[in-house]
């Protein structure tokens, strides 16, 4: 996809020796790895209860996102510019090419842009309204008028964060919604395990 570098990031005290710069959200740079836990609560109309799942994630800037759901059962979802791959018990169950389903390309850009702080990327797809400051902020994203409903099946996306992205709420066109809460995030470089790197390579094929 065209903006592969825009993965997200944030940074604390980025590098000025001798000065402890106040932690603030910033664009992640290539090679950085963001890790954290998530809880996802999916509300689907007509379902008896919300679908709740939880696990951890690894975002490797420029490479892709590994989303490891642990509860209610183990699913690994790997999203790269090439598309989405899901694995259960190490076996691939789903592979969807981004070019075939433009929705995934958008999702990648959305999550990537949101987590990496690349507002510019988001602005090509959404109207972005921002509140707050670098320590505590929230963003409201509305699809651009005339956006393709197939590749942009959202009515609104809300992002909230501080040093890191803390919460995402996605409301779909049909009223279903997802709430993603993030916690325990850490940012580092060179932190991909061999297995993670291999998974990203497999998914990127």
């Amino acid at each position: 996809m065209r903006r592969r570098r825009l993965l997200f990031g944030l940074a604390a005290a980025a590098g000025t020796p001798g000065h402890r710069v106040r932690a603030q959200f910033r664009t992640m740079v290539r090679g950085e790895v963001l890790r954290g836990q998530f809880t996802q609560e999916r509300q689907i109309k007509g379902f008896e209860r919300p679908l709740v799942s939880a696990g951890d994630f690894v975002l490797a800037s420029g490479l892709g996102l590994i989303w490891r759901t642990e509860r209610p059962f183990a699913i690994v979802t790997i999203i790269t510019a090439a598309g989405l791959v899901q694995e259960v018990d190490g076996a691939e169950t789903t592979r969807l090419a981004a070019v075939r389903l433009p929705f995934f390309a958008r999702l990648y850009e959305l999550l990537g842009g949101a987590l990496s702080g690349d507002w510019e990327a988001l602005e090509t797809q959404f109207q972005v309204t921002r509140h707050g400051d670098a320590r505590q902020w929230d963003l409201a994203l509305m699809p651009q008028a005339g956006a393709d409903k197939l590749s942009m099946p959202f009515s609104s996306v809300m992002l909230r964060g501080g040093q890191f992205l803390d919460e995402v709420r996605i409301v779909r066109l049909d009223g279903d919604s997802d709430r993603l809460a993030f916690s325990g995030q850490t940012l580092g470089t060179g932190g991909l395990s061999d297995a993670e790197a291999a998974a990203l390579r497999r998914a990127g094929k």
Partner: protein
Amino acid sequence: MSRTLAVIWLVVVVILGANLVWRVHQGLSFRTDLMALLPRDEADPSLQRVNDRVAGSLSHRVAFLVGHRGRDHARGDAARLARALADSSLAEIDDVPSGRNRFAALGALYFPYRAGLLAEDDRERLLTGHPEALSIRALSQVFGIAGMADAGLLRRDPFMLLPVFFAALPLPSSRLGVEDGMLSTTTDADMTWILVSARLLGDPYALDVQDRLNAAFEAALRVVRTTDPEVEVLRAGAVFFAAAGAKTALADMSTLGTVSSVGTVLLILLVFRAMTPLLLSLLAIGVGMGAGLSVSLLLFGELHIMSMLLGLSLIGIAVDYSLYYCVEIFAPGERTPRQRLARVMPGITLGLVTTAIGYATFLLAPFPGLRQVAAFSVAGLVASFATVIFWLPLLDRRGPARHGRMLLAMMTVLWRFWRAPNLRHARGALLTTLAGVAIFGAWRIGAVDDVRRMQSLSPELVADQARMQQIAGLAIGTQFFVVRASDEEDALRSEESLLDRLHKLVLSGALGGYRAPASFVPSAQRQRQNRDLVRTRLETPLLASYLARIGLPALAQEPEADAGADGVLTLAMAANVQPLGTLLSELVVPQGVQDGGGVAHIVMLDDVRQSDAVRIAAEGIGGVDFVDPAADFSRLLGRYRRRTVGLIALSVVLMLPLLALRYRMLGAVRVMLPAVMTIVLVPLAKAVFDQPFTFFDAIALVLVLSIAVDYAVFCAEADAAYQPVALLGVAMAMTSTALSFGLLARSQVAAVHAVGSTMLIGVALAFLLASMAGRRRDGECA
């Protein structure tokens, strides 16, 4: 009498000339595809018509990929090139389906029939008893990130099988995505690539179409390059290959024409040291060439560039008759032009007849292009011959030559070599050497029929094509299956049997991919089977527990009877929906192209890596034929190579009684001996240098046989006093032929090279051996 004939011949020449001038004025059209030169498969004309249609539609495809590090640059440059192509009105740029409609219409088409649509892998899992794989996948999609499921969808397609079927559809150039109206992709090196594909409106093998297309494209490319020097442009399409091939052939042709003409002129000037023989020879060549061209155009309306190339080599043979005539000035004693003609008359007449027999064998074999060569050559030779016998004696005022003693002495040496008793050992040594070459060659000789090795494909274009495949997954395939059946349903069923086998080949890596009508619309039978499979093997055992797990209340009966329980999707419905309409129009051959009202479908193949495995896949499925044009064509070349060798043997047999009329049987055998030795030795000698024996060598051998007989006849005609003169004529004929055909040997096109090298070695050997045919009873030379 002779003047009357000369005037009649003048009238004929003027008429042929007028026709030629008129045709040139109208604009000549040249064909450039090598395939057009060669024979067709007549065994199954209906299959041939389907093949022609598919090959024709494939050959009209043009595609280019424009790459640049800057996305906007790539897009701008691609747009400019596309516009230039469209403005030239030579090609129609393919529409890029808009993102909005590309999949929405497809979804609307398939959704009501989803119960009968299964991706191949899913069907396989159900058939092999692994339904849990499908429910795990569905769970992972419902719970995982980016779940697309909503309650409405899950109620109608609880295991979300339709999205999987949809994702598995073999839509072409699948590595490309539509982005703002352009098909594009990004590679690792951060290059944005934009694909522009188009359909050529003219004939890709017509020289003027190629020229205009290249001119328009190159001009646009220059403009793009001046503003954007870093842009990369890759091209694919038969037209580019054909144009590159034609360019090589044209370059060959102009070099060949020039060098062989200049060489022949120099040869004549050096030997005769006078202008008259040169002018006479040029007249004979000119009339021959013009008549050949004119008659070919009358008969065929157009010319193939290869016939032109081979026809041009005729300069070397057409000049023979005038050379034989002119060389008579070296003969002892005073003679009038008419007496000189009378002396060479039997020789050149026999020569013409034997050469014509050689070319006539081209007519016996059904080679469309070689018929052109034969017509061109026979007309040209007859015209040269007529010019020599009707005009030359009238135009020639020369007396005997005073020089030439040296040349004749040299010829005497060769003559003596074959005669002198004291040189018996030298002769033995030569023959032993030749026998050695023959044995060594016979041990190494091998035939090659692979057409891919006969054409010289532009390496640059081959590299472009490989990169396009790597970047965009785009390949303009050349291999396919034709599926013929009495109706659509039968055709779809046969395809499904075939696709089940091809699927395994894809998994084993023998095949890159395939695309058939049944990939988009399964047969009614398969749709019903799929429905049963899902019901009995997936829903019955797993649906209730699956729904409980995700927390969706049990499904009511089928919520809406979208397609009814029995509805099936048909090809006719799919043909109205883009992009399926376009795809299917390439895969479903319209009624009427094939006989008897049946239907014909195409299974296109991408990236065939093991063509034998793919060919075998169709075995046992009725009405399915594998078409691999290159391989089929190579087989055809092999068949005709063997047939041509048979025709050569037949020519030998036909020439014998003809020669026996003049020389008696024994004499005829003696005249044929050097010629037969030559045609046997040439391929063996080439084999010594690892050169394979091809169809094109066989064709050249036909000519070598005619020429070698010609040389031998001249030597046989000569009595003792004239032997050196005759041999001088042969030497000059050999040199001029070697000059023209020898240059063909330098051609980049393997087929032309084969003809050239065979001719070169052939005429040299024929000359060396020709004096063996000299009359034995005049043993004065010894």
